[in-house]
């Protein structure tokens, strides 16, 4: 069946090529997971690239949510039909990098194609996430974000709180109690992306490891450390405040983000990419601030880690096709293009030059909330604990962790017991991944 199809395609392609030799364009398939305004960005980028030269044609295809796109890519690879470029969310990084032979490192793609490429020109906080410990870039950063605390200025005023948002966790707890007393009785503060906020970012921001081996960067034989003091203390605080109705759980993903824009939750930790939504829907005065930290942890705050997605190049394609991919990445790295992408979509610029240019233009004076995630990422030189997390099967592990955190928040387990279980079950999943990733 597959053989026949391939022959047919080959015959078809041959016939086409013979019929129109002048149009010998090489097609580059790009699968992505962007919806709404971001989908328009992707389509526009492809159109601009296609108009800029004649040899290559980037064809975009929307494949559903991040996990759906990853699954579609995996299924296509298994069937021998993988696209050239696949957008994969940061959680899928370890899955992709362990698939040797299925992918081609971006550094190699650029080198083989002879494109000028300097990894150092990209923001290290972003590329560090997608590079090996030796600094070889595996995937191309596309849309990056980090976690920030969005706050409702009107609500703070109503509760008689100072205009400047709370900086530390104890201050957040106090502010949330006052907000509750001032009428925000359903939710003083909350977080989206449960494990990203309360495990992964919390660890990086306090320079505390989530796992051994530099959070998985130095090999797959890593073990979790999420039942250490900081995590237990934080979850204990959340569980107690949940009981008092000061903290209110908002679910595992970002489905609860509407609680901020509707005015229900005046303090809300979620992705900086929430910007577009807030701008469009919030009917109050708002801004964002860096994530809170525990002042008694030495050295805190450290630096935050990124979220979002990067572009992976799939293996087994022709040299000419890789050349097109490389040209496209050079096109994406262009300073002016990055400036435009950053200021219009709210995603982070990926090159240092683009960041400097936006800074110099004074754009952040009017839009300080777009700089918050960059300030967090560049707060300090990343350490082994704050470069990012790279654990195999993290998609599944996040669900396991969320399950246990929920059990602590609804009082079924003590925070310590829940995190012990989360740690053990996470380790089991890691061992399973390790066995398959050889």
């Amino acid at each position, binding site marked *: 069946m597959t053989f026949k199809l391939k022959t047919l395609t080959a015959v078809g392609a041959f016939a086409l090529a013979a019929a129109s030799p002048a149009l010998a364009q090489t097609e580059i398939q790009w699968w992505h997971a962007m919806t709404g305004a971001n989908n328009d960005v992707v389509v526009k980028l492809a159109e601009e690239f296609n108009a800029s030269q004649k040899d290559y044609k980037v064809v975009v295809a929307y494949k559903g949510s991040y*996990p759906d796109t990853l*699954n579609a890519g*995996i299924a296509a*690879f*298994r069937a021998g039909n993988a696209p050239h470029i696949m957008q994969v969310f940061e959680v899928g990084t370890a*899955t992709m990098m*362990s*698939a*040797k*032979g*299925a992918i081609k490192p971006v550094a190699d793609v650029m080198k083989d194609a002879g494109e000028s490429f300097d990894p150092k020109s990209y923001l290290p906080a972003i590329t560090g996430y997608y590079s090996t410990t030796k600094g070889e870039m595996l995937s191309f950063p596309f849309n990056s974000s980090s976690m920030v605390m969005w706050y409702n200025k009107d609500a703070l005023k109503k509760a008689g709180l100072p205009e400047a948002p709370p900086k530390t966790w104890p201050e957040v707890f106090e502010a949330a109690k006052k907000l509750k007393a001032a009428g925000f009785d*359903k939710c003083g503060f909350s977080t989206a992306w449960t494990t990203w906020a309360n495990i992964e970012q919390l660890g990086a921001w306090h320079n505390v490891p989530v796992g051994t081996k530099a959070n998985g960067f130095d090999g797959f034989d890593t073990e979790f450390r999420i039942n250490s003091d900081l995590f237990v203390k934080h979850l204990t605080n959340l569980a107690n405040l*949940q009981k008092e109705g000061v903290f209110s*759980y*908002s*679910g*595992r993903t970002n489905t*609860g983000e*509407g*609680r901020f824009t*509707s005015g*229900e939750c005046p303090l809300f930790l979620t992705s900086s990419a929430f910007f577009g939504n807030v701008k469009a829907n919030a009917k109050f005065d708002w801004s964002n601030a860096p994530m809170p930290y525990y002042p008694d942890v030495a050295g805190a705050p450290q630096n935050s880690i990124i979220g979002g997605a990067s572009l992976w190049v799939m293996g087994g394609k022709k040299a000419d096709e890789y050349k097109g991919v490389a040209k496209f990445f050079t096109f994406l790295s262009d300073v002016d293009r990055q400036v435009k992408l950053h200021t219009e979509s709210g995603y982070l610029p990926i090159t240092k030059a683009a960041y400097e240019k936006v800074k110099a233009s004074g754009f952040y004076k009017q839009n300080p909330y777009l700089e918050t995630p960059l300030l967090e990422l560049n707060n300090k030189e990343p350490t082994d604990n704050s470069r990012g997390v790279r654990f195999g*099967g993290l*998609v*599944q592990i996040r*669900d396991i962790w*969320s*399950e*246990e955190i*929920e*059990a602590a*928040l*609804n009082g*079924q387990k003590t925070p310590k017991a829940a995190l012990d279980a989360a740690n053990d079950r996470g380790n089991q*999943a890691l061992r*399973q*991944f390790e*066995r*398959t*990733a*050889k």
Partner: protein
Amino acid sequence: MQKYAHFKGLTIPLLLLLPQLAITVVFFYWPASQAVWQSFLLQDAFGISTEFVWFENYRDLFSKPEYYKALINTGIFSVFVALLSLSLALLFAVMADRQIRGAEIYKTLLIWPYAVAPAIAGVLWIFMFDPSLGMLARGLQSLGVAWNPRLNGNDAMTLVILAATWKQISYNFLFFLAGLQSIPKSVIEAAVIDGARPMRRFWTIVFPLLSPTTFFLLVVNLVYVFFDTFGIIDTISGGGPSGATETLVYKVYSDGKGGTNLGGSAAQSVILLIMVIGMTAFQFRFIERKVNY
């Protein structure tokens, strides 16, 4: 008089059977055998490294408390959904079968929810009962009920049971109504003349005559709760909070699709397959005896 049509030779009967057999093989036996094969493998997501591990995926499953929890959840979920959707559908069908004005509109409205996709049904219910968004949730909260399916396992289970029941009532209603309408009027009229009251008529005449329909629906409903409900669970609760609404079929879906643990997921679907075969066999062997055709 000849009772059956007979074909001479084997060619024509085989030819006539072929399309059906081909479909069954391609869409059932082949994938099912693939699932069995996959359940013995340990494989990475991309299928690059594969290891044959015999029954390790099964052993792994049965050593985890989460699997037993999913088993119990499935029990609670399926008993409640099947009982509720069957009894409510029967009640509605009996009501709709009476001589009332506008019966057609009433029947049509009852059938509509069946056309709604499971995931959409889930979204509809979450819009009503989400603790922040839902109108009805706000109503409950203002009555002093601490309704929070986001964190309370029982609330979440109640919500998925209600949504799954609502989705299935139409189907059951349709069959019960057809069953009721096929009961000869003369039998009922004879009972009326004999002086039997409505309740007695229902339990001694109507209900037994409906037994083939009820039996058929019981089997169909069980298959529905076991296999068709993950869309509803996915949109309402995602199996949470803390695994409270994770049923066996949802676990197959989330482990396989989200977790890319294909071996474990395949092992679970094989177990599920065996369970449903077992239950269907049990039903036909023991419950069918009580059915009067």
